[in-house]
């Protein structure tokens, strides 16, 4: 077979050296009743045939390069400079594993050190790990971390209701058998959901001696950005209550808005996918996780530190591994080992080449396009846009017809992938659509969407 190099002759020679006769003899220790079951799989393909099959599967999809796309909701279509993939494709990077042997892993290690540095720069925090699986699991781990940091004495965690619904679901999954209460994220009315500052007050009112943490999205799932000055007050209140403030961020938004580090967050998590990682139907993405230096020993995941070698040259190693499962086993800060290193590398390359200026341009383009689209839709009869609160690149639209209906028509008649149906996330929000624009949406596409919505919304 293709990726097995042995010839028949070599196989014979190897068996001879081992001292057995047939390859089957190597499996004598497998209980006979179970040995060599048939594998009912489709017959093998050559590379060419596999390519044909995979190309056919890929072509059975409509992708966002073909149709204008206004979906966001946690996964964003951004421009990825060609240089990112060119470098990611270097075999020395992508066919290595966890850099346990630093002498032959300085490439990965230094890049991860740079990644940590950039995440600190973006978030305004002091220390970052070298990635977690994705934004949602990073949040779950941040909650567990907050529980540990409050010594397990505070079983309550307050979740802002407009955190990504799937993130909240993941947190629930992680803590389902622990002695933890997740509160604050459900049971709100439409008009309450429309007033994030009101929600903030409500949640602050629930802070107490039982509370381990308050989790704030920035921007929230509906695109809105809470005022940093107001969040500074929140941080004070959280800290006065002896709890921790966790922020869930979109890293592109942080190119514009005051970073959580400067308004008092203790742990910052987020989805790093917008930083040079393709949509890829939802994964692999990049969990971001940063905190204060004081909390570093409770941070889960790999951390790279600077040191020197025998000859005094600067070098990098995995450090603080006594937090980790391979050393501490059941007492580790987390079970994570394989992370998403290559995605972190992608983000590092992306942030390097975009730089301070380019990233700001991207964020500003996202912002301007979304606001232009919001303004245009606001002028359409039958549509209402939530514009009273500052937003980044997503916003809510109340639609004159059911969202799935609108999306179907957009798809079939206009070649447009419409917005996210908020009714899926919360029945209170049904009849509302979440629209997103990035630098990838041209004005032409925006005008086409507006025109389509106008036509679809017009009374028959």
């Amino acid at each position, binding site marked *: 077979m293709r990726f097995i190099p042995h010839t028949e002759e070599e196989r014979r020679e190897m068996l001879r050296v081992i001292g057995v006769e047939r390859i089957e003899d190597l499996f004598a220790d497998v209980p006979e009743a179970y040995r060599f*079951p048939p594998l009912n799989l489709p017959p093998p393909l050559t590379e060419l045939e596999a390519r044909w099959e995979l190309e056919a599967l890929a072509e059975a999809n409509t992708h966002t390069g073909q149709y204008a796309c206004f979906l966001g909701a946690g996964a964003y279509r951004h421009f990825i400079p060609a240089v990112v993939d060119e470098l990611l494709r270097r075999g020395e990077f992508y*066919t290595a594993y966890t850099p346990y042997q630093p002498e032959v892993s300085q490439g990965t290690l230094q890049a991860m050190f740079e990644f940590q540095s950039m995440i600190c*720069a973006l978030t305004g925090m002091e220390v970052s790990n070298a990635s977690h699986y994705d934004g949602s699991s990073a949040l779950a781990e941040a909650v567990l971390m907050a529980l540990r940091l409050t010594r397990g004495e505070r079983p309550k965690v307050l979740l802002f209701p407009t955190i990504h619904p799937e993130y909240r679901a993941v947190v629930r999954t992680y803590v389902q058998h622990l002695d933890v209460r997740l509160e604050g994220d459900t049971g709100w009315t439409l008009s309450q959901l429309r007033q994030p500052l009101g929600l903030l007050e409500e949640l602050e009112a629930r802070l107490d001696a039982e509370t381990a943490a308050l989790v704030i999205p920035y921007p929230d799932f509906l695109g809105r950005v809470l005022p940093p000055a107001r969040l500074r007050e929140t941080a004070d209140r959280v800290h006065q209550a002896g709890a921790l403030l966790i922020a869930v961020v979109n890293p592109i938004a942080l190119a514009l808005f005051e970073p959580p580090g400067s308004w008092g967050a203790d742990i910052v998590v987020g989805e790093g996918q917008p930083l040079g990682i393709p949509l890829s139907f939802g994964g692999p993405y990049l969990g971001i996780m940063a905190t204060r230096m004081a909390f570093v020993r409770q941070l889960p995941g790999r951390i790279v530190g600077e040191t020197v070698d025998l000859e005094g040259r600067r070098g990098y190693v995995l450090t603080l591994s006594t937090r980790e499962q391979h050393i501490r086993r059941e007492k580790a800060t987390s079970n994570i080992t394989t992370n998403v290193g290559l995605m972190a590398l992608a983000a590092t390359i992306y942030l390097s080449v975009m730089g301070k200026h380019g990233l700001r341009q991207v964020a500003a383009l996202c912002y301007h396009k979304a606001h232009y689209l919001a303004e245009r839709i606001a002028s359409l009869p039958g549509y209402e846009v939530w514009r009273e609160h500052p937003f980044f690149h997503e916003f809510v639209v109340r639609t004159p017809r059911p969202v799935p209906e609108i999306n179907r028509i957009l798809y079939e008649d206009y070649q447009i992938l419409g917005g996210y149906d908020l009714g899926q996330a919360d029945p209170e929000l049904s009849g509302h659509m979440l629209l997103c624009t990035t630098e990838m949406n041209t004005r032409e596409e925006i005008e086409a969407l507006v025109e389509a919505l106008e036509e679809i919304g017009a009374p028959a």
Partner: protein
Amino acid sequence: MPEPLIFEYSVPGRRGVEMPEPDVPQTPFPEGFLREDLPLPEVSEVDVVRHFLRLSQMNFGVDKGFYPLGSCTMKYNPKINEEMARLPGFAQLHPYQDPETVQGALALMYHLQEFLKEIGGFAAVSLQPAAGAQGELAGILMIRAYHQDRGEGKKRIKMLVPDSAHGTNPASSAMAGLRVVNIPSDRRGNIDLDALRKECDETVAGLMVTNPNTLGLFDENLVEAIELVHRCGGLIYGDGANMNALMGICKPGAMGFDVMHYNLHKTFSTPHGGGGPGAGPVAANERLAPYLPGPIVAIDQERTVRPDEPFYTFVWPERSIGRVRAFHGHFGVFIRAYTYIRMYGPRLREVSEAAVLNANYLLALLRDLYPVPYDRLCKHEFVIMGKVSGTPVRALDISKRLIDYGFHPPTNYFPLIVPEALMIEPTETESKATLDAFAEAMRRIAEEARQDPQRVQQAPHTAPVRRLDEVRAARALVLRYIPTAEPHPAQA
């Protein structure tokens, strides 16, 4: 020459990629919301290319040479996988597109689920978990949910974990709120049945089994151990990290495993990415299938018009433990694993046969050079002791010296039950010539240990850096770049 940090190339005002000017009217930013500085590097594209190219050259991957890292299955990653994962029809799909617009992607996930079911002998598979460890967590939560549904949730709080297990096993159990009980290994490297028997009571949630275990051995007590645990009402979690030994050889599902995770980045050739991403799909038998994390892909009979063109959609297992992540798992990794499985089909058995052949062959070559703590037929990997009697040389020294011979070191100091462990997993993609060369290097290192131990103890000598001071790193805790007062941009 050490490579500067990318920050050290930065020159204020230098530009990398630039973006178009806005093509829409601009909206003022809200007041009081904006950040002041954004301390990212300011470098040009060529700086970035040279920097990361040079960094890559300081790395060792499977594409560079033999990487016998035990427990990690560092097999060759076919290049076709990389091309397929980059097809725009896959890479440019938004996770929230309507199922109707992503039937190709859903078909791929559905069939991958089916393949994994068949390979492991299970009733259902969820592709959701992001890695093996998350698969473990999911599986353990499933076990807990099962007990809970039977009213035993509060009672069954003990997870039995062999002492040879990977660290993720106890860590995952603890995250799920269970108490970990260590089960020692017997003298043949199997689960010690007496010790196990003692712990088998009504507080047992389950037993975590890695088979072949981390010694590379097929557990001879497996059938009995499973029966013991099942009899006391516990369930069996299978750590499938070592499935590369078993494809077409035996099916864990058939042997009584209730739930098991796969590591697509090991067994199914998806690249390890310098630490990830992987994927840790979790498989379950009939009993646990309803608890799988969701969503999973199924055929929507209602929307299927022609039987040969099923309509695929996401569904939720009846009693699912919930989501373990947003969206639908590491789809990019699934593409690679799917491609790989399609290229082998039923001949995956040959993969496992060759993996086991390679391990036994290499073990045969090394047996006389280094102590072998559990010397019997191994499966896809084996463990030796990194000692040369009468010399101060340790496993770590041997590992580092192998670097000078052009090899990646094996896993060292794991499993914990073997002192000076060197855990060697050659995988099936390595040729006899490579194994011979590795054995020869090991022979020469043993000789050097006797004749010039310093040479071994101070290795590597030819790597981009010498041994690094890990203690200093942990003490100094320099974990990010902090700009110096006087910037002096580096050359590209």
